[in-house]
């Protein structure tokens, strides 16, 4: 591979980092940023006593856009955080076999986190009083 000198400040995938994963990590960041600002504002400003109570959570989730938005937030933030953690690990130059094991742990762990989160969203939506 030819050595390319990038302009200072321009990031690029590092050795061991797939270009598509790097691109997803970069692209998911701004989306997460918007969603996390909404998440922070809702959780710290809409609650009558600081954080939202159980009833206030159900009231918030009764808007059908909210579970969809939180579901998207969950998928994007879990993938972004694990890809970021993987980037940090890559800087320690792990062996190929160790990196493969870490990749499987992250894939399974991330999938489990998303499945659990979506289950929890369904439980919350199902708990919303009808009418």
């Amino acid at each position, binding site marked *: 591979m030819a050595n390319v000198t990038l*302009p*200072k*400040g*321009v*990031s*690029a995938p590092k*050795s061991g980092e797939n270009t598509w994963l790097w691109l997803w990590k*970069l692209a998911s*960041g*701004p989306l*997460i*940023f918007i969603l*996390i*600002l909404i998440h*922070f504002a809702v959780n*710290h*400003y809409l*609650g009558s*006593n*600081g*954080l*939202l*109570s*159980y*009833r206030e*959570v159900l009231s918030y989730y009764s808007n059908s856009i909210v579970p969809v938005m939180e579901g998207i937030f969950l998928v994007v*933030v*879990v993938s972004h*955080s*694990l890809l*970021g*953690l993987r980037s*940090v690990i890559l*800087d*320690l*130059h792990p062996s190929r076999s160790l990196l493969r094991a870490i990749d499987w742990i992250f894939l399974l762990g991330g999938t489990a*986190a998303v499945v*659990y*989160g979506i289950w*929890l969203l369904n*439980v*919350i939506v199902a708990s919303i009083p009808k009418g």
Partner: protein
Amino acid sequence: MNKVDNEPSRSKWIEWFNPQGRNLEGITFSLNRITGLGLTLYLFLHLIVLGTLARGANAYDNFIKLVHNPFFIFGEFLVVAAGLIHGFNGIRIVITSLGIGVPTEKRLLVVLMAIALIGTLIFAVRMFTA
């Protein structure tokens, strides 16, 4: 592979936290890493404790009462601060990765970190007075 003097390795990982000889970009790189790791840890803890929502109103409201104390509020403040710092720094990385604003990167960094600080203070006022 070319290795620079302060590139971390398995035996020198502690060098990540040594600020000596680092420039502003190096410090914000480390800050992005530290906030990212903190947020990742918080994310998985957050998902676990949100399981109290599935146990009904009493369980969840009792948990909210439990965390309504200065220790936990300070922890949440750190999460908000980390989120804003990591987010705004990430915006800078995305912008410069597209080749935009690279010559004025330092100024962009200072402006974005100032906005992050202001945002953190706004949330801090709400969190510590609610």
